[in-house]
């Protein structure tokens, strides 16, 4: 993407019908570290890579509990992500207070999307620079949504956002058809394996990832390091060789097309 004369204002259309500022905001999402979501009929798993600014600092929180039945993972400008998480928590608790009943996740994402859209149509605002993977429950079961800075939202069986997410997406694309019927344990294992794909060769340790689960009979909570390490131990000892070969090719093809895939030194400090 190159600079052009139509990209200064979010309220300026280009002659080809594009809003460049909105598209640039979506680029910011690609700079953040990876976040992954998958769902079965009854459970949703959200996982993220723990990236720290330096060895001295702790890693940034990328997964937030919105309510017992809704969780969100973010990628991009984490400050924007925190503000939107606070909005979601507020909407959720207001609904619970008035109706004594959990807010259906489908209705929450629409409100979130409408809020993001406002920022694409005011000259004194800028779009939120964060992508959100919202997992939650409503009357028909478990759902996973992706909310864009553009104000669009989509429902997914499984999705990955952030840097090197293409590797994870390739992995998920191969398996998503079975996710609906997956058990909770298999879903968690697939999430961790997808995270491993984004690490590109780096050894997978439980300290490098955060995993959260929610389900029809299970309120949102994080898995502790031990449980994650146990799952990692089941596959890390026996590397799957045939798959490694296939994945290396897929990653090589995806890397040049993806921003931020090459080096983390290009990532601005505010993006994680």
């Amino acid at each position, binding site marked *: 993407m190159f600079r052009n004369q139509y990209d200064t204002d979010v309220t300026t259309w280009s002659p080809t019908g594009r809003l460049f500022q909105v598209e640039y905001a979506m680029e910011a999402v690609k700079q953040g570290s990876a976040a992954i979501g998958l769902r079965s009929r009854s459970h949703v798993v959200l996982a993220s890579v723990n990236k720290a600014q330096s060895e001295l600092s702790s890693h940034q929180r990328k997964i937030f509990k919105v309510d017992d039945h809704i969780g969100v993972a973010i990628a991009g400008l984490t400050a924007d992500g925190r503000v939107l998480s606070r909005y979601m928590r507020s909407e959720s608790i207001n609904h619970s207070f008035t109706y*004594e*009943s959990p807010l259906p996740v*489908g*209705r929450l994402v629409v409100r979130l999307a409408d809020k993001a859209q406002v920022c694409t149509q005011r000259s004194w605002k800028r779009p939120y620079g964060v992508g959100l993977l919202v997992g939650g429950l409503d009357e028909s079961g478990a759902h996973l949504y992706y909310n864009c800075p553009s104000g669009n939202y989509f429902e997914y069986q499984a999705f990955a956002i952030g840097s090197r997410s293409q590797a994870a997406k390739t992995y998920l694309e191969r398996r998503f058809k079975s996710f609906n019927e997956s058990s909770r344990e298999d879903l968690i294992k697939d999430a961790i394996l997808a995270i491993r794909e984004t690490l590109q060769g780096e050894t997978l340790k439980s300290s490098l990832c955060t995993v959260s689960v929610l389900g029809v009979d299970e309120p949102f909570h994080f898995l502790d390091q031990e449980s994650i390490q146990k799952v990692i131990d089941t596959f890390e000892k026996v590397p799957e060789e045939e798959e490694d070969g296939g994945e290396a090719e897929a990653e090589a093809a995806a890397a040049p097309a993806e921003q931020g895939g090459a080096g983390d030194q290009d990532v601005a400090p505010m993006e994680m």
Partner: protein
Amino acid sequence: MTFTIPIDNGDALKNAEADSQRTLYPYVTGTSIVAIKYKDGVLMASDMGGSYGSTLRYKNIERVKAIGKHSLLGASGEISDFQEILRYLDELVLNDNMWDDGNSLGPKEVHNYLTRVMYNRRNKFNPLWNTLVLGGVKNGEIYLGMVSMIGVSFEDNHVATGFGNHLARPILRDEWRADLSFEDGVKLLEKCMRVLLYRDRSAINKLQIAKITEEGVTVSQPYSLKTFWEFQAFHNPTAGAQGSW
């Protein structure tokens, strides 16, 4: 040259004419509602009278209405406030339906919404002068609850408003069971309504019984109860009285 004369309405709480926008007393009122849970859902009975003080002025008022797919709302107290509440709920149900996403408001949600409305109005010293009964069935769960004009709200297996609290609930406490069939439930309600008919001066002999189950709502056609007035005490009520009293 124009100027406005400031009118000091005075302290609203002390000055009787001040702020005529607040509800001070009810005008057209409905009397008791009696409702019970039974095997398949909820049964709610009410008469069709609207009293204007001590005059039984209106005799065709439906005080039980269906709300959405899953709930039944009955009201006693000011009829115009009941109509206002129906308007609020209409809007609520409309917005809920417009989502068109497979989720819908159940009786518990409607009950809590009404509790919030009633309590907030009470806090502004402008109550909706009603006692509401909310019953319904959703996903197999049978729900029955009540909200008063001051926002007191609770759920129970059988509820009654107004005079029903004093005359009907003792009967229900003795005779209600969780596995009542439809016929037994109606008989129980008719027993309560008959006592109310004899003893509540604002009751009329024209009642409706509404039923809600998982399948939906049915409101019966208005009908009247058989009454018996040939008790000795009714023949010559003042026979035993001495003197001018």
